[in-house]
């Protein structure tokens, strides 16, 4: 399972990291950790546009795990 940790990073870096991972492998599942709402929305928006289904799991302390699956 790929895990992309974007905690502490602000836009556009979380979305760039998603795109990079998506470019390397656009099929196998990945989790993206985000720690702010703007990144959660931006990464979700970008992932859905690339055909992923996104499930958000709240990990507490403001951190969300975005489960990206195809």
């Amino acid at each position, binding site marked *: 399972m790929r895990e992309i940790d974007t905690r502490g990073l602000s836009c556009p870096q979380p979305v*760039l990291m998603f795109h990079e991972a998506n470019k390397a492998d656009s099929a196998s599942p990945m989790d993206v950790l985000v720690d702010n709402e703007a990144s959660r929305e931006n990464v979700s928006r970008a992932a859905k546009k690339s055909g992923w289904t996104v499930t958000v799991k709240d990990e507490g302390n403001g951190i969300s795990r975005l489960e990206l699956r195809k």
Partner: protein
Amino acid sequence: MKHNIFATSVGILLVGAVIGVLAIMLQKMGNPANMGICVACFERDIAGGLGLHRAAVVQYLRPEIMGFVLGSLIAALAFREFRPRGGSSPLTRFVLGMVAAMGALVFLGCPWRAILRLAGGDLNALFGFAGLAVGVFLGTLFFRKGYSLGRSSQQSSVTGALFPLLILGLLALALCFPQAEGQPQSGPLFYSLKGPGSMHAPFVVSIGCGLLIGMLAQRSRFCTMGALRDLFLFKQFHLFLGILGLFVAAFVANALTGGLHVGFEGQPVAHTDNLWNFLGMVTAGLAFALAGGCPGRQLFMAGEGDSDAALFALGMLVGAAMAHNFGTASSGAGLGPYGMHATLIGLVLCLIIGFAHIKRA
């Protein structure tokens, strides 16, 4: 998943439109023409109001700026998004703020005002907006190469709340020492008797609009720099809808209320030296991009507890003061004596910061 209506395409478009209408309303109620809202100009006015520079025509504690921060704070608290954070290259962000303010004051406007100037028919702003786009585009090249100012980390609640507290202090000063009729000073505060600093909507209207915009922008993540950046980086139009809404609403409001005057000459608080209108905004645009937000967005993030964004805003305050103390700010008469120097030095500084923070080969 939490649903945030303001973060939808319709939401961001409407937020932009509301900001556009409020900006023109503020102009009608007293703010300078094509300057219903200008974060760089208003921070410059605040610097003057506090006596950090002594340009007599631009001194006023603009309540809109206070409203932006406090409105964002209120929304962030209400929606449990207040997150004290910081520690991502703070001094670099402060310097980027200084450079951004100085570049913007060569053009005479931040991205918000560039759009409002266009919506008022000021064609010089085409050069400013083009410069902004080029500056932001340069920024995206750095991001593509792996540019990063590093991760922020969680901070104490006090650190997160300090900037909003400073803003509350400004608000208290403004309320305790209002302008006395015809007087340039009230207690520790300075007021303009003529020029843009003397032109303002009633305090209550200004702070009310500021609060509303602060809340809406916090929810929608409205960002004028991000609008262009996301377009260049991801071909993503989401934030662009926000500035489109702002432009169209302000344009229509101007057209309906006689505020539309198309041309280059005689535009309010503007000059026609278009090479430097362009280059000033290249510098500012690159600084905004490298710092991750337009000057408005930095204030909204500061209201959410981001002390790095707060430092950028403080850098803009200091940069705006220096722009007048050092003669780098333009005026309606044209460039300041050192405007070109500041633009180019600022651009070089941004490039150095950009190259120095590329994390991978």
